[in-house]
């Protein structure tokens, strides 16, 4: 039997507002417990919500950037359930009339083709607080600082067919919300998290299988693993004559498995109704026009510009525009290094990215700033150093030994470009290797490499390679 998996993602992006969605308390991460939970966040008797203008603006930006319909009339509704991290006993969310509907995202697949993933809707809602399970005499502690932080819940169509596609889509959205500056994308702090709806069906079958929802997955790696585990689990179950039940599951990263959450389902009757403390959010054309003007250059536009403006390959442009920070870094290097875009691209995609990956840090934490890399590239261009020596300079800059010029000066890495000095070295090497000279002259061209190596060794790598080549050729053939 051949199975096909059908996946839809619900992504919760915390919006980067200063204050909460319905109160004027701070959304800053990491404060002492309950010090940023005001009367409204705590759901004290008598308090009322008032909507944050910026949350609406951010949702509208997202809607426009994904070609969605931004609703002229959207409504906040109450989702009723009891949970200790939900102070009012209901979450203010949007149900029937969300602010964003019917958009799409294009993702690139591994074989280089592209695929469109539909966005069903994106709605605004308030985040819940946090339950801390470390033991307080057998009790759980509740911190409501996060309660009321604005979330944009982005719901995809079930267009995704594999864990890899899911990750590609999630990365794409992750990059987009940062481009739009509506979410800091910090997954470790929970600013960007994902629920995955997974089902399987026989290939060719039209009807969808019963789905399981995997809750709160907070890294790309875990999304891939959790989905793959869940697909395998469901196929095993079905092939052994079992049945998939509709339920909520949790991904346990330590055991690399999903497991059923103590069924919340039985009481899963949320009794949505329009929040009578709030009125409909009305958006008009003029407002949307203003929002449109504030949209930054989006990944796709930037990629096309990089190809045409910097003559980059499609491959390089895709990588460099993968995140707004990386793209900005690259452009800053190009501007400050007198414009050799290809060289800058090679360094950013090559040595810099490799190093960032290895140390698992993001580009804004790189010890080699765009300025530093740019001034190093300038020294390559003006032949002060060779491309090879540049690698040493880069490593030294990374370890904090100063900027390019300082490293070159301190380590004496300046390239030897004095013809007579190079000639002297070459003469000596020709003199002491008569056998190889013989071979070369007899037509064994490969030996040429041996001579280059000897010269570079003698110069400690500092001889200008082009000059070495030219002089060697001339001397060997005379």
């Amino acid at each position, binding site marked *: 039997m051949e199975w096909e998996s059908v996946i839809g993602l619900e992504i919760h992006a915390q919006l980067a507002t200063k204050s909460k969605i319905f109160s004027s308390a701070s959304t800053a991460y990491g404060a002492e417990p309950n010090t940023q939970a005001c*009367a409204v966040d*705590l*759901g*004290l*008797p*008598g*308090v*009322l*919500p*008032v*909507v944050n203008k910026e949350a609406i603006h951010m949702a509208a930006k997202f809607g426009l950037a994904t070609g969605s319909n931004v609703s002229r009339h959207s409504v906040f509704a*109450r989702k*009723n359930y*009891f949970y*200790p991290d939900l*102070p*009012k*006993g*209901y979450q203010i969310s949007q149900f029937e009339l969300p602010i964003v509907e019917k958009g799409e995202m294009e993702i690139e697949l591994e074989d280089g083709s592209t695929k469109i993933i539909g966005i069903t809707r994106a709605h605004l809602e308030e985040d819940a607080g946090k339950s801390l399970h470390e033991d307080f005499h057998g009790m759980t502690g*509740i911190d409501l600082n996060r309660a009321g932080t604005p979330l944009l819940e982005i719901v995809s169509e079930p267009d995704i067919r594999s864990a890899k596609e899911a990750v590609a889509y999630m990365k794409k959205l992750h990059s987009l919300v940062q481009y739009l500056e509506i979410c800091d994308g910090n997954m470790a702090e929970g600013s960007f998290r994902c629920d995955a709806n997974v089902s399987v069906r026989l290939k060719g079958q039209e009807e969808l299988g019963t789905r399981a929802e995997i809750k709160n997955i907070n890294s790309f790696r875990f999304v891939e693993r959790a989905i793959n585990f869940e697909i395998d689990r469901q196929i095993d179950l079905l092939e052994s004559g079992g049945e998939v039940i509709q339920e909520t599951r949790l991904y346990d990263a330590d055991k690399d498995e999903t497991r059923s959450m103590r069924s919340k389902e039985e009481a899963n*009757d949320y*009794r*949505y*109704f329009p929040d*009578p*403390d*709030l*009125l409909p959010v009305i958006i008009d054309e003029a407002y949307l026009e203003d929002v449109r003007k504030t949209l930054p250059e989006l990944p796709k536009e930037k990629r096309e510009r990089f190809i045409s403006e910097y003559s980059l390959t499609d491959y390089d442009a895709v990588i460099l525009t993968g995140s707004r920070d990386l793209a900005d870094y690259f452009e800053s290097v190009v501007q400050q290094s007198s414009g050799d875009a290809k060289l800058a691209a090679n360094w950013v995609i090559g040595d810099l990215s490799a190093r960032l990956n290895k140390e698992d840090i993001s580009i804004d934490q790189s010890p080699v700033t765009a300025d530093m890399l740019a001034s190093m590239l300038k020294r390559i261009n003006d032949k002060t150093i060779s491309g090879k020596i540049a690698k040493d300079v880069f490593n030294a800059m990374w370890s904090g030994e100063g900027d390019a010029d300082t490293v070159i000066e301190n380590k004496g890495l300046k390239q030897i470009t004095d013809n007579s000095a190079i000639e002297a070295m070459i003469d000596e090497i020709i003199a002491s290797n008569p056998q190889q000279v013989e071979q070369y002259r007899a037509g064994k061209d490969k030996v040429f490499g041996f001579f280059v190596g000897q010269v570079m060794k003698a110069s400690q790598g500092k001889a200008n390679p082009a000059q070495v080549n030219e002089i060697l050729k001339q001397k060997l053939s005379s």
Partner: protein
Amino acid sequence: MFHTKTLAELSQLLTSGEVSSVELTQAFLQRIKQLDTDLNSFITVTEDQALAQAQAADDTIKAGTAGLLTGIPFAHKDIFCTRDIKTSCGSKMLDNFISPYDATVVEKMSQAGMVMLGKTNMDEFAMGSSNETSYYGPVKNPWNTQSVPGGSSGGSAASVAARLTPAATGTDTGGSIRQPASLCGITGLKPTYGRVSRYGMIAFASSLDQAGPMAQSAEDCALLLNAMAGFDRRDSTSIKKDVPDYTADLNKDLNGLKIGLPKEYFDTGLDAGVAEVIDQAIQQYKDMGAEIIEISLPNTHLAVPVYYVVAPAECSSNLSRFDGVRFGYRCEDPRDLEDLYKRSRGEAFGAEVKRRIMVGTYALSAGYYDAYYLKAQQLRRMISDDFTKAFETVDVIMGPSSPGTAFKIGEKTSDPVSMYLSDIYTIAVNLAGLPGISIPAGFSNNMPVGLQIIANSFEESRLLNVAHQYQQTTEWHRQIPDAFI
């Protein structure tokens, strides 16, 4: 004999220096001590804070910066959050709740220099029409202590009727200001929805709740509304509209005023004695030059059914925050989370509150939403449209506030539906968000009868004018129960 005076009269005595706010406050505190034991109209008396506020008011008066309400004692319904003072909402759930903040209305009254004597008794979470659902026991009607004062603002109504306070605040979700005002023989105004901030007023049904003044006269209500009304940035449903001086139009004559009498308000359910009093009041208006026009509000009979979907639905959600976690009652030794929720709520909510939470929960639950909640919202529109149409031909609508006079304590407690039907004339006004006032219009079997006047949105000035003119030619609002003279 300060207690027989209206706010307007007390205000003059204070400015002229004939009495100080401290003296006035002491006099009323003394009356509460003497007379409220049986009446039970107060849950909390805040003597120390009252005297401190009175002293401050006297200083303001001496400094010459006093306003019309500076130094005048009054009481808040115990539904308004008062900082550092117990705010119980008539419930065991909040018996231990010392509010950490002030409601906007509380702030505004303090800013006006008024002196809070205490917090008045009420039906639990404002759910009731008789004040019998209060955790603190029923309030008695000063006109007959065997009878209910009405509700839910029964403590406010009874305390004003007994002249234990010159005025009080109330809230009205389905008649909770107008009905007790009617049953206790005082004047009570429910303003247009959105006119007075709901911030800090413990929510019963958010799309219906509105705070308003309860006092001896329409003029006093105008003075109080001047202080209470206004835009509040903390309430999304508060209206950004200038607050007029509600006393400005009080003396306009009523010549040519078009009064609509909805035939549905004089139907079979109306007590004959009440009908007679209302007829006389209408006659009085005719004599003052008003034109009487019979109108129809055809969906009147649906107001109670619609209300008992909308209000319970909203309350079932509004009262979810009372879960024993952050404030309020918590059961002893909960076994687990579910036990904490169920017992805290089960032990601390009274039967009527539980009933309404359950009706609302049911009406919103999967499979029933369309048949109940959505249907009710559609009928709400039709009820509201009836009024819109009526106000195309009339200036105000008049009728009884309640189908009967105060009933006996215990008479309707076993049959919630018969209790609900006693709000039949007031409920539609909340569904439509309109302003309404109840004024004393006479007596039937020695119990007060209230005339209800309804106006179009934001026409409180007109309502107060129409009520005041009647009170200029009648003395019903000046009547005090014998035991409290």
